């Protein structure tokens, strides 16, 4: 499930979880570029509640790794000020469910500053946040809000699904001169390991990846759902259906070429995400496909999404999250249309 880098990876690799891969990307960029700062709740001494910033305080000191007061608007707002003076802050929101208090700063300022200042001030900020279900935590720890960010002009939204991509994409996000919202699936933080090159490589923002090729139907997913799509593909393969799995990796801007290219080939698509369906990323993908590839479509684009309900408390969350069965059923609906 790896591959797809833009630059030639270094020879040596390490077997890492996604959380560790982000950590390596952060550390390497901080080493390379003294302007990169990390800030947020518990990111320093504690190394982050998911240990993604572990070791950074020791390596780079308290001037570059800032344990902040518990205030998300403050983190992003002060981070913006730091960006204006030439720093490149990587702000951590402890869980995506707690990003709401920061939305005023993100939407009204971070996303708009370049435009407002007619290009004078860039905001090379990364806003990292663990997202999504699967780890059975209390309320507000399982949310998927990417659509809110996609709907806000001026942001880019990146959601890796593998350790390799996670490192390469966090590097790209940090180097990007515009704000990037970087969502990390809690469920796959430590679910598996993968060989990740040491040293410098970047995975480009805005490029999807064909995880598996197929001719019959395209399964379009991102983040934790990529693994569900791969599982569904395996199940479909047992019924002789060849599904192509496309991992979006960036949900804004969408890789429209990759999406259309695949759907023009297969004629059928299923979009999968954890977030609610109404005006979600799946709606945008479906709208784009019908807009630009209507004549290739053999069946409606299917959406397999979180229900349009609050993410449930742990005991029912498995019933909420899209899984192999729902994806397979949607693929069949497309095939039998």
């Amino acid at each position: 499930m790896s591959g797809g880098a833009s630059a030639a990876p270094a020879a040596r690799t390490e077997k890492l979880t996604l959380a560790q891969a982000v950590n390596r990307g952060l550390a390497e960029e901080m080493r390379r570029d003294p302007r990169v700062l990390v800030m947020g709740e518990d990111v320093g001494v504690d190394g982050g509640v998911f240990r993604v910033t572990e070791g950074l305080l020791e390596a780079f000191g308290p001037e570059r790794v800032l344990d902040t007061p518990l205030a998300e608007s403050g983190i992003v707002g002060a981070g913006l000020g730091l960006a204006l003076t030439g720093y490149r802050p990587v702000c951590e929101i402890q869980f995506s469910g707690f990003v709401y208090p920061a939305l005023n700063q993100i939407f009204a300022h971070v996303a708009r500053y370049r435009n407002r200042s007619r290009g004078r001030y860039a905001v090379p900020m990364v806003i990292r946040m663990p997202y999504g279900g699967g780890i059975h935590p209390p309320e507000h720890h399982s949310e998927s809000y990417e659509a809110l960010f996609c709907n806000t002009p001026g942001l880019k939204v990146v959601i890796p699904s593998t350790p390799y991509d996670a490192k390469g994409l966090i590097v790209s996000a940090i180097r990007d001169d515009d704000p990037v919202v970087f969502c990390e699936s809690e469920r796959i933080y430590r679910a598996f390991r993968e060989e990740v090159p040491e040293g410098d490589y970047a995975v480009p923002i805005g490029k999807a990846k064909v995880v598996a090729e197929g001719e019959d139907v395209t399964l379009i997913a991102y983040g934790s759902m990529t693994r569900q799509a791969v599982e569904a593909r395996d199940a479909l393969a047992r019924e002789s259906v060849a599904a192509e799995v496309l991992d979006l990796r960036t949900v804004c801007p969408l890789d429209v070429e990759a999406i259309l290219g695949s759907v023009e080939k297969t004629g059928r698509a299923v979009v999968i995400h954890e977030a609610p369906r109404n005006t979600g990323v799946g709606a945008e993908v479906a709208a784009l496909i019908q807009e630009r590839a209507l004549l290739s479509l053999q069946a409606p684009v299917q959406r397999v999404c979180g229900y349009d309900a609050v993410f449930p408390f742990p005991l029912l969350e498995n019933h909420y999250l899209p899984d192999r069965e729902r994806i397979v059923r949607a693929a069949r609906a497309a095939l039998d249309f």
Partner: protein
Amino acid sequence: MPLKVVHQAVTERLEILDKDGRADEALVPALPGEELVRLHKLMLRMRRFDEKALTLQRQGRMGTWGSLRGQEACQAGLAANLRREDWLAPSFREHGVMISAGVSMHQVYAIWRGDERGHLFPAEVHCLPVSVPVGSQLLHAVGVGMGLGLRGEKSAVAVGFAGDGASSEGDFHEALNFGGVFKARTLFFIQNNQWAISVPFRKQTAAATIAQRAHGYGLPGVQVDGNDVLAVYAATRKALDHVRAGHGPYLVECLTYRMENHTTADDHTRYRKAEEVAYWRERDPVDRMRRFLAARKLWDEAREAAYLEEVAAEVEGAVALLESTPKAPPTDIVDYMYARRPWFLEEQRAEIAGRVAP
């Protein structure tokens, strides 16, 4: 340069019991012995309840749990002053005051085990559901306090809870300010346990206390030794009298200490010293009160043992109820979203109902 004084504020701190449970007799609230004992019992009960949850969690029978250990005096000192008609707007570590105010033990367990039905508190208890986004529920307490005032209530008040970490959120400020402007019937009850996960209070703010914040809104604020149940009781009583009388909000800051991990998902040895924890263990609120009562011959080992047995039975009963409750149907996911389900939830409900359990 000489200047004219336009405002002066003094922030005070109340302590009654010393570390070894010796009281400043002049300050001991004039309560009958059984009421003093009740404060201790409230603490014992919440501690036992909390310990059981930690055990269940270790055994995989509970979800993430945020222990209140160390904060029993805060919650008992407040709880003893509450009236049936009062409203609570808890954050996530208020198990103690919740079960003291009439929320059933198994309900609190259910919430943290991951069952929304835990929030169906007894109808006569005005306790809002647990609010996880820190600070946000203070505004609900203000709104409830305003509503009680509009309704002409003369007794009922709303209590909004927050921690030291939560005091950094914008909503903390908006709540104090709204409360002041509308003279809300609201008590701001702040448990400053000196840690917000791994962030110590001195990194949370440059202020010496949270109590002094109140003065910035024209409100009274006081700090109290939060490991001293008599001090919490006395200060909270005074504060509640003020709020009940319609004079507007009051802020009580209990300076206490979180003895356990932030939650069971946390490892506090990563960020704080064993000596610090030991220092505070010596100031355990339950021990202090026990000694105070023993010195007054109001309590002894036998009574404690008997009461703990009683509580243990109650807790076990709650666990039994918790674990014998059948899981909610998966359609519950969509069934409480709106008074009437819109078409898309109708469709989604059908999908959920039609599925085999994953």
